[in-house]
């Protein structure tokens, strides 16, 4: 496994804990389906690309990182000790 360096960011980000609907397979595999952001908007996860442990480079902390595609945008969703969070842009609030 190689560990590519992560992008430098100039935009400020904040950690936003979100509500997530999950599908759990009989084997115990977890797949997030939707994210409900703090303003109540529900985002459907179109694709799940990768799942690995990684640190959140923009907001700090660590967790199981899901690389997901939402509305043609690739982004990360983290799960840390049962809580889920995303790296949201600070100025726009999402």
């Amino acid at each position: 496994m190689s560990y590519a360096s992560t992008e430098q960011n100039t935009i400020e980000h904040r950690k936003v804990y979100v509500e997530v609907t999950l599908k759990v397979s009989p084997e115990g595999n977890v797949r997030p389906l939707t994210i409900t952001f703090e303003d109540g908007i529900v985002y459907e996860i179109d694709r799940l690309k990768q799942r690995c442990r990684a640190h959140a480079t923009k907001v700090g902390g660590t967790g199981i990182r899901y690389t997901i595609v939402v509305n043609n945008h690739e982004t990360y969703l983290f799960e840390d000790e049962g809580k889920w969070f995303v790296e949201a842009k600070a100025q726009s609030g999402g």
Partner: protein
Amino acid sequence: MGRTILHCDMNNFYASVECMLNMKLRDKPVAVGGDVENRHGIILAKNYHAKKYGIQTGEALWQARQKCPDLIIVPPHYEEYLKYSKLAREIYSQYTDLIEPYGMDECWLDVTGCRNICGTGEEIANRLREQMYFELGLTISVGVSFNKIFAKLGSDMKKPNATTVIPEDTFREKIWGLPASDMLGVGRATEKVLNSYCIRTIGDLAQAPRELLKRRLGKCGEMIIQYANGLDHSPVAPMDYEPPIKSVGHGITTKEDLENAAEVWNVMLSLVQDIGHKLRVYKKKAGGVAICIRNNQLETKQWQCQLPVKTYSSAVIAKAAFDLFTRSYVWNNDIRSVTVRAINLSSQSEPEQLTLFADSSEVVKRERLEDTIENIRERFGKNAILPATLCRSIKMPTDRDVELQMPTGMVM
């Protein structure tokens, strides 16, 4: 072919975790400091930006602020440090099951068995560093060598986020020129003795007369000569190894100096409540008591005594500790910190040879009473029942309610 031992040291651990959790701190001088109100106002860790100002671990917060007025001091979050320490060990466990923690932020790994799969020690060290940064956002320095002492030395040589290899065939050129005090086992007191014989480097130590050091430093003298010659054969403990509990202790720095024996008694009584509880949990009995007293001039003294009857009763331990204190302490200065330890532990189920002269019935009666108290505490909480004297303020600090179980097995 010899062993391959890695020593992984998480750089500025406490401060790095704080900076990783709060990105805004990242490019600023940051230190983790204890609570001033509770007189724990010292620097516990600092990041590299703070280090540039000459801030040192252990110095008072006000001294650090004088050196760097913009210094950001954050309180410690021990739960987070334990969490990241555990996660780091999970990463190590992907390579070997021989993982011996040395404090919260350091570990020895014996990777001899996985060289065929994962590559050389250096390659494994580099992968570990990358993985640690990618997964946890923390950096480590790794020392790679053929024994634990040199691996530890290596991890201290290059920081941060670096690998240092000390190979078996060239270790003399690489480390014999370093100061002897860099080596594990050579502390300040030993360094002083070595200096008096002009033994200043690890090379000097390796070639020092064995008899001389044995005479001056005892077993330790012989040991450090062996270490300097690369002859440390101690194994890396397996990760599920639990070191036997040798003592159970509790110590605190009080909010204000203790000014008389009655105040010391209150503090000791409060400390032994936890000790009694832990002895019950570990099913141990104490055969002796040790106390450590630090006065407001920061001078520390320790004493210990045997108990006539082994016990897990907090009251008996408290009384023995207080008797020892009144017999031993000469009251020239007020007291800043008190530690009580239950020592010479043995299993509660172990049969005990009673003495003819000590009356064990009193102790047994007291233990039964405390069993009942423990039951009440289990049902209604730790403070449901207390000695009356502890119900008022007794200068105990209030900043640490969490119990820490260190990876080394020590209970704090």
